[in-house]
């Protein structure tokens, strides 16, 4: 397997000892086919156990390992070394407070997800014993793409509007609201609209389109539309 010496420049911040963030340079031998997360794992195991970041699935579905890689919000488990040359700069996701190193605080994001009432508010309740709600493949396709969001928060880091206007509810929450609004089983659109159409809601979106760029792998957050 082809190997290569990779240079990482990682943002470090430890609230116990630091008043501001600094960059630390690591050199680590990696296989050419590795992802940035593999390189970080090697640094943590062999060079510096005090480096902190989140990760779990290593298949781009759990959404833990979002980071800025050369200034772009990326899942580090799905960012391939083969696509990079020279020093790779790794920072925590922007627009979120940094707890430590690459670990950010997603509290605001979590609160916003909850605010759009992301659950079925049934049109008509029916007991389990009566079986499933019928839903044709076409009705399913209407919302499925919006149900694919893995909550990795990359779109919030990509969205300049969220950075400039932190009360903006943001792409993932809007997408989630839309996902349930479009579901044939749901009757909660009006309730959700009260949240989505407030000051903080959909009207703050100026259609930069950066959210969709950041999330091409999973769901496509979307700017508002009149529906």
């Amino acid at each position, binding site marked *: 397997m082809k190997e290569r010496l990779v240079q990482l420049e990682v943002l470090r911040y430890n609230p116990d000892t630091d008043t501001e*963030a600094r960059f630390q340079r690591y050199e680590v031998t990696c296989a050419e086919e590795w992802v940035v997360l593999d390189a970080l794992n090697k640094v943590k195991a062999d060079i510096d156990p005090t480096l902190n970041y989140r990760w779990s699935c290593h298949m781009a579905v759990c959404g833990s390992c979002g980071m800025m890689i050369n200034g772009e919000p990326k899942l580090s488990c799905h960012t391939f070394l083969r696509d990079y040359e020279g020093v790779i700069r790794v920072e925590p996701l922007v627009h979120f407070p940094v707890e430590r190193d690459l670990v950010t*605080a997603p509290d605001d994001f979590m609160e916003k997800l909850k605010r759009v009432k992301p659950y079925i508010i049934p049109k008509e309740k029916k007991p389990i014993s009566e079986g499933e709600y019928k839903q044709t493949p*076409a009705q399913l396709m209407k919302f499925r793409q919006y149900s694919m969001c893995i909550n990795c928060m990359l779109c919030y880091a990509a969205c300049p509007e969220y950075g400039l206007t932190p009360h903006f509810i943001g792409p993932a929450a809007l997408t989630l609201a839309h996902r349930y609004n479009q579901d044939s089983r749901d009757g909660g659109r009006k309730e959700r609209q009260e949240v989505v159409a407030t000051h903080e809601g959909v009207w703050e979106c100026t259609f930069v389109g950066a959210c969709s760029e950041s999330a091409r792998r999973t769901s496509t957050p*979307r700017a508002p*539309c009149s529906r």
Partner: protein
Amino acid sequence: MSRNPLIREVPPTSWYFRHPLYLRYMSREITSIFIGAYCVLLVVGLQRLAAGPAAWEGFVTALQSPASIVFQFLCLVAAFYHAATWFNATQKAMPLQIGEDFVPGNVISGAHYAAWAVLSVVVLFFTGVF
């Protein structure tokens, strides 16, 4: 208590230099200055039109000043750029589903471009450009 999260501020007046995508977005936003100014010019034109043939002729002559030519040119660029970005964005804002499948984005944009071209040609035809 050791928790003391670091807040990394977004620079409010220079954030758009952080990413080419943001620059593209800002250049789209800036077109609104020219479009807005051009709209004012349209209102002035209406006023001249209402004021009679001499006023209208004066207006058309005034358009031919060098400053106006430059302004018109910039507006032309802005208008085309805005149109292109608008049509490209529509496919994302209003995805179109037929049956189980979504109409591909470039088909939606393509339809917009086609309609736009037809409309423009019709206007040019009726105004006697060709």
